[in-house]
Every structure is written in C-alpha cells, then in structure tokens.
C-alpha cells in the first residue's frame, strides 16, 4: 500500500488509487470536472492539475491528479502559485465561452462552474472584446424524453458520453466536431432513452443537461434535502428527497456502493409524482353507523376511529379477520400489523405486490435487478406471510382440537377470489398497495367484507369505499426500514411532517395495539426495530441507531422461498 503525501498530509492508500481519491482521504479537495469515480479517466478538463514530486524530484509539468496514480515517495502539492495559476487559467477558459446565464439556469446553486470559480477563479473577465462562441439553435435540444441539452453551457467534459458508453452501455451520446466547435449530441436516428438516462443530468457538472421533469421546477438552493430510500421497486436505491415545505421536487440518487452506487433509474425518479397526482387522505373517515354499508361519511378524530376499529376487531363473529399488507409497508409496520393479527387470532395475512419491468441498477458487484413495484415485499412478508399465526389460533382454543385447519385467505384469494365475503373485518394496511386498489373489480371484491378498514396516504378508490379510512404518512413522512431484493435492510427517516391528521402507520398501529395491551402504546419506529432485532433472528445484532448508512445484509441467505421458511421459524413465541 503506497504512502503518498498531499500538501504535507501523508496517507496510505490502496495501490491504484489516484491522487484525487487520495486527497479526499486527507481532506484535500482537488477540483475536477471530467473525473468521475465510475467512469474512465480521460484527463481532459485539466482542472485537477497538481504539482507532483517523485523521489524528491519535481516533474517538469503539472500533472492531472485524476490520471496520476498515488505511488510510494510521491509528494503532491495543490497550493503552489503554479497550481493556482493553472486552476485560475482553466476556470477562465471554461467561462469565456460560457453564457453565464445562472439566473435562468436550473443548475445554479449546485453548479461546478459556480463552485470552482468562487474558489479558484478570478473575479473579472479578460474576454471582453471578442464574441462568445454559441451554438445557435442548440440551446434546448431534447436528447430524449428525460433530458434536455443546452449546448451553450456545456464544458465538454464528456462525462455524459462516457456514462452512456460505460454504465448504461447504450451508447446514444457522442462527441461531434472539433476544437472550439465541439459538441455533445445523440448519434443520428438515436435518442437518449434508456432506463438510466436521467443519470447523465446528475453527472453533468454544469447546466448543459437538465432534467425534463425538474426543469424550472425550483431553485435548488431553496430545496431541503433529506436522505431516503426510493420506493419504485425492490432494489432500494438510496435517494435524497429534495422538497420545499413538503412539496417534493425531485429525487436524486445518493451514493451507496452496496446498492445503487451513484445511479438510479428514471422510473424511480418519477415515483414521487404519485404523491401529487393521487388525492391525499387527510382525515379519519367513518361511514355511518356501525355495520351499515351505505351510511353517510363522517370525519372523526383518530380516537373515535381507532375505538371503532378496536371494537370491531374484538367482536368475535363467525367471519374471518384478514390483514392485507403491502410491499410499501416498512418492516416495523408489518411487524406491528402481525401483532395486531395475533390479537385478532388471525392467520389470514398476505402481501400483494405488482411485478415491474425488472430494470437493473449497475453497481460494482454487477448490479441489482428490481422485479417488483414495491420496496419491501420481502420485509413485509417476513411478518405477514399467509398462514403465519395459524398455530396461534389453535392454542387460543378458538378452534377445537379436532377441527380441520381453516382455509387461509391469502392475497390471491382476497384480490381475485371471493375471500373478502368471508371476512368479518378486512384490514387493508395500505390504500395504495398496488394496481389492485385502483381496479374497480378488485375494489368491489374487497368491499364484500363486512367491515373494511383501510389505512393509507392515498384516497384511492379502495379508501373511498372503506368503512373506516385512516390517513397515514407517505414514506417521505415517516421513519422505517426496508429490505431490498438482496435482503439488505436499509433505514430511512422522515423528510418532512405529514399533513393534516395523517400520522405514521407505526404510531397508528401502536395506538390501536395499546387498546389491547397498554405495553404497546406509544411505540415509535426505532423502538419497534429494536424489538424486532431482539426477537427475530434475521435481525439479530442490529439496532436502529447502529444500522450502517449503507444498510446491512440480513442473516438469512438466498431465495425468497427459503427466506419465507426461515421467516416462519423466526416468528415470536406467544406470551
């Protein structure tokens, strides 16, 4: 492992590390545009020029830090007058032909040119008597459905070109013409339309490539940025929710080398739009008198609503009590829902999930392919597997010893069959669990239950017909953990508070459980997670606060079925 000294700070790095990365390790920022850790090194922006001394001898020219591999006896200086002069010179070159239209540029506020010219540039221009080079007619070229190019702002770093060739491996973009007339564009007859296409906007250090979705939506310096997890599929991309006062403006990928690296897909970026287009459930809504299916709707308090649900769950009628989960539930919510099912003595649990297109997010291990349009089917199913808790019912003595096992109502039975009509109470834990909640036939089938309780953030057709509809938080408004396609458990926190009466599902379920046993009252996601960790072997050793930022793989290896068996064993003992 070579030791390299950068500005008098010595650091030991792995062989093959370049000077930029080594500098990061000791807190020396070396400015760069074209270098990106996941793209080939081309050394063409020349912004990272540094002075290199090898064995006490200074190399005659400044070297690009990106293409210089840290070596033993190497000393690097980034603060000499010569380096400063070069950096200022490069900044001047970048800016002479740049339109400087920051006031109308989406990138302003997170722009590499702004940052570096503030730090390394000079405050005045010597390019006063010449005309700027422009690309007439190429100020707003849609490269594809998601990306718009403004060639005037481009600094020709070719990160986008290399991204399409090396990461998305679709190769739509190219470098055209020569010299000062060099431009970026799509090859004739091609358009930038691949599942990862918006990532070129992220890798673009300037405002040349902007996202169609975010274009002119908000000044980035007004955005609040909170780390979270994408709910688009079960890859579990780490994202940053960027919102202004609870109005989400965009998702951006957040670096996690174990999951999504620097990337995320276009579909994932669009998922927040759901929170705006689907109407929001803002207050607890109850329908008429108890047992009536056609009464008038009344708005009520959480206390009234939960008291009503509690009463119905305790009424031991002949019908079943079924719990329909969702892949959007966090582990904590699913676990609490399972406890609720235990109290109701119900084995009728399940997690319906829609299948998706199966996009692969590349990372260093090869990539993760998401197949389901929900982030946490695996986690939710750990606790809400159909039939789990059946032994419970037997031990409770609700069913006689000689009695045959009751048929378990699984999601297929509920959504596609006539399962709901056998239910005294049907609790749907997410009003937006998938396409089913918006399909009239499915809604009609679920409505056949005698008493339909729906929790959810969305006022979906299903929530509209519920006897009790309870408004809960979206994933941006709550804390929790998800388990992704590779059984990696990842934590996320609320980005902003939930509006109206909406509260987090964990809070609501704990409140409801508290009506059965006071020990449950007042639980929060972190406490629930710690209880899961103490009771479920798969989670052993984790605590909410020590869960690493990159997430942690669960102890259970392998496939879905194996996991489900293991999950059955991990169910807690009845106390």
């Amino acid at each position, binding site marked *: 492992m070579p030791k390299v000294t950068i500005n008098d700070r010595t650091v030991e790095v792995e062989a093959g590390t370049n000077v930029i990365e080594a500098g990061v390790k000791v807190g020396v920022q070396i400015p760069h545009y074209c270098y990106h850790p996941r793209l080939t*090194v*081309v*050394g*063409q*922006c*020349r*912004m990272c*020029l540094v002075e290199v001394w090898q064995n006490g001898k200074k190399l005659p*020219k*400044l070297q*690009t830090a990106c*293409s210089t591999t840290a070596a033993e006896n190497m000393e690097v200086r980034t603060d000499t007058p010569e380096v400063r*002069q*070069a950096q200022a*010179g*490069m900044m*001047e*070159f*970048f800016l*002479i*032909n740049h339109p400087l239209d920051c006031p109308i540029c989406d990138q302003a506020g997170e722009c590499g040119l702004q940052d570096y010219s503030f730090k390394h540039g000079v405050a005045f221009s*010597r*390019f006063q*008597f*010449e*005309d700027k*080079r422009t690309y007439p007619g190429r100020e707003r070229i849609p490269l594809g459905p998601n990306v718009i190019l403004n060639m005037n702002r481009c*600094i*020709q770093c*070719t990160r986008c070109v290399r991204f399409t060739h090396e990461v998305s491996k679709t190769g739509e973009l*190219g*470098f055209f*013409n*020569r*010299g*000062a*007339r*060099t431009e970026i564009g799509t090859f004739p007859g091609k358009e930038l339309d691949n599942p990862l296409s918006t990532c070129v906007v992220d890798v673009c250090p300037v405002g040349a490539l902007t996202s169609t979705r975010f274009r002119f939506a908000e000044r980035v310096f007004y955005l609040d940025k909170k780390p979270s997890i994408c709910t688009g599929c079960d890859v579990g991309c780490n994202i940053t929710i960027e919102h202004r006062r609870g109005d989400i403006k965009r998702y951006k990928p957040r670096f996690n080398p174990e999951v999504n690296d620097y990337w995320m897909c276009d579909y994932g970026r669009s998922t927040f739009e759901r929170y705006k287009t689907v109407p929001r459930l803002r207050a607890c809504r109850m329908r008429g008198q108890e047992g009536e299916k056609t009464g008038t709707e009344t708005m009520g308090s959480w206390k009234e609503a939960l008291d009503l649900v509690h009463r119905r769950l305790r009424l031991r009628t002949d019908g079943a009590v079924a719990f329909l989960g969702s892949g959007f539930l966090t582990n904590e919510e699913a676990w609490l829902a399972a406890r609720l099912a235990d109290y109701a003595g119900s084995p009728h649990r399940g997690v319906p999930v829609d299948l998706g297109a199966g996009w692969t997010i590349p990372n260093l291990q090869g990539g993760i392919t998401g197949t389901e349009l929900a982030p946490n089917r695996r986690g939710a199913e750990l606790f809400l597997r159909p039939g789990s808790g059946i032994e419970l019912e037997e031990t409770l003595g609700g069913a006689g010893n000689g009695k045959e096992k009751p048929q378990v109502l699984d999601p297929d039975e509920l959504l596609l069959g006539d399962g709901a009509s056998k239910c005294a109470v049907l609790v749907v834990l997410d009003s937006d669990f998938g396409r089913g909640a918006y399909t009239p036939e499915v809604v009609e089938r679920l409505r056949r239950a005698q008493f339909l309780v729906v929790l959810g953030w969305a006022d979906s057709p299903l929530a509209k017909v519920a006897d009790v509809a309870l408004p809960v938080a979206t994933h941006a408004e709550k804390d929790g953990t998800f388990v992704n396609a590779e059984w990696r458990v990842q934590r996320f926190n609320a980005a902003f508070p939930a509006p109206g009466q909406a509260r987090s599902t964990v809070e609501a379920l704990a409140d409801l459980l508290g009506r059965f046993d006071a020990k449950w009252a007042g639980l929060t996601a972190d406490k629930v997670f710690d209880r899961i960790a103490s009771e479920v072997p798969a989670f052993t050793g984790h605590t909410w606060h020590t869960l690493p930022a990159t997430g942690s793989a669960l102890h259970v290896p392998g496939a879905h079925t194996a996991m489900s068996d293991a999950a059955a064993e991990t169910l807690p003992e009845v106390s």
Partner: protein
Amino acid sequence: MAFERVLTRNVGNRDALTLDGYRKTGGYEALAKALKMEPDAVIEEVKKSGLRGRGGAGFPAGMKWGFIPQKDPNQPRYLVCNADESEPGTFKDRLLMEHDPHQLIEGCAICCWAVRAATCYIYIRGEYTKAAAILERALKDAYEGGILGDGVLGSNFKLDMYVHRGAGAYICGEETGMLESLEGKRGQPRVKPPFPAVVGAFGAPTVINNVETLCNVPHILVRGADWFKSIGTDERNTGPKLYAISGHVERPGTYEHPIGITFREMLEAAGGMWRQGTLKAFIPGGASAPILKASEIDIKMDFDTVAKAGSMLGSAAVIVMDETVCMVRSVARLAKFFNHESCGQCTPCREGTNWMELVLKRLEHGEGREGDAMLLKSVAGNVGGNSLCALGDAAVGPVKSLVERFPEEIDAHVRERRCPFPEYRYF
C-alpha cells in the same frame, strides 16, 4: 562539404519504385543483415547510431524500441509508422514515400524484427493519395517478392504490413490520437501514461516512428552506426536530415543535408531569398516551432542548438519570410490552423487556441488594444504545458515568439489601428 545523399538517393530514379529496381540499388540487404542479427543487437546498433526521431520531438529511436516489453513472446506487438504528415510547411515524408517506398518498407521491417512485432501499420495522411497508391503497390510487390508475409526473406519471421489512410485531421499525427484513429475511434489523443510502448494500438505495446526515422534504419545497418555518427554536429545530433524549405526562397523544396548545417547554408542551397528580398524571420521546424529572427541566420539546424535558441527543430519544415511579411498576420494564420485542428477534448487547447485566434484576428483587423500583447502571452502561458497532448504546446509556440521577438509589430498594429503591411487575402 561534399555530402552524398542518403535518404533521397533514389529520388529521380523511377526504377526504385519497383522491387527489382530497389534491389539493384542495394535494397533489402539491410533487412537480410538484420535478420541474421539478434533483435537486441539491432536495437543496440540503432541506439549506438544516435538516431533521433525525425517526427518532431527528437526522441532517440533506439531507446524507444528498447522500451517495448519483451517478456511474453505471445503478446502481440505493433509498429505504427507515422506518415500523417500534416503540419503546415512539412512535405519531407511525402517525398520519401512517393519516390522510394521500398526504403520505408525495409525500415519498417527491420524495426519490426528488432521489437519482435508481427504487424506494421503505415498510417498515411488521407490527402496523400498518390503516396498511398505507390505504397500499396510496393507492399504488393514486397509480398509477392517474399519480403513480407509468412517468411520474411526465407526466414521464419512473419510480418504483415498495411497502409491505413487517415481521414484528414492534424491531431491524428499525434501518436495516441493516431492509435485511436487506427482503432476506428474518434481521433483524439489519450491521456499519458500509459505510454504507447506499454499500452498502444489495440492495447498492445506499440512503437510509433516517423517515416524519415524508419528510412534511416536500413542505412545504419548497412553502413554501421559509426558512419552514421560521423554525419552531424555532435554525439546527440547525428545523421542525414531532410529539410523542407518553403516561403520566400528561390527554390522551395525538400533538401537533404547533414544535420547541423547552418540556416545560411541551407538558404543558399535553396537559391537564396526570393527576388533578392531581405530575410525577416524564419520558422525552423514547422508551424508549431517558435519563430526565429533574421539575426539568428547562422544557427546550426540541429535538435539541441535550435532548442537552445528557444525554438525547436521539430519536423525541420523551414518557412522563410521576407520583409513584406506581417508577423501578426502570419501568426494569426497559424493560430487559425491550430484552432481548427484542436480536437476539442481538453480545455486549455480547445478554448485557448480559439481565444488566441480571436485576439490575433482583432489585432490584424486594426481593433487591437493596449495590453493585447500581455493578454496573448498570458493565455499562451495557460495553454502551454497544461494541455493533454502536444498540440496545445505547439499552438503556443508561434504566439509566444510573436510577443517576445516582435513586440514592435503588435505595437504598430495597435497604434496605427490597422495592419501596416500590404493587403493579402488571407482572411
């Protein structure tokens, strides 16, 4: 000094275009001799001769060959002959290829034997259609005559040689830009290191040599390194050299001289100044070399002496200018060339060459301002040494020399608000 032409001995001898004709002049004897030697001995001989690259940088050819890793015998190695001669004022390789193609083929073959390369590409400038056709024919003859192919001259050395025509970019004369172009990619230089000797064409170790360099090799082998060393100024500047003289001389053209001839002698050999004009300035080594003033007329035209004078011998394309030439205008024209030919990938070259051209044009059009000289010098300083390949440095040479050696001409342009020289229709 009576000097016997070496490289250009077959110029004018149309027989030499054919294999038999070339053999009559002693052709392919050097290759036969080389094949009897150990490859390392060939490299040693070339090293001993002190042959320096004739393409511009003047890097010792033998040393370059010695860099090629020889550990793995199965690893492919390549020789790429740089015949992409496209610098303004340079036309020496064209002469060699059009008049003595077999000499080049022989040089390439010897080099391939020395570095154990089984494939050679001759990357020829796209506009050299005639030279390409002649080379192709010569290659065909060489294959049929048993010089190339499976058994070179009856030995078990296998060698394939191809002519690859460029598509018309100056930057493809830069060695890594040429490799990219050869591989079918956009012709733009690669970041170094790794150097081509380690990772070159198709990822394999590659030697890249200029046409003239390779043409010297057969003569070194036949006549010996000591003979080669006897020509030239000193240990570091040896051998015969082609000088392409153009501009205001009576008889412009390619002349072969021993390296280190003074510029005055060279000018006399070319018939003196055009119409008895007065020498004002000359470029000693192609468009990228800083311009020298008339007072330096007695400079020895070898690598080290010219470098010491603040210029470079480069490809030895000498451009002579008389007193009617406006230096600002000529440098503006050169800046236009470099701006046009910059590949555009690295920032200083892309933006700097453009800016320099704009400022020089402005000066020439009478819109110059006080401080433009300083501006030019500063921009040139930011480009020089900071660019990815040598094109940036090349573009800076003429501009810097204009500011340093001809400041009074810039002043005159600014003061008079016009070009003080007669009209030319360059722009």
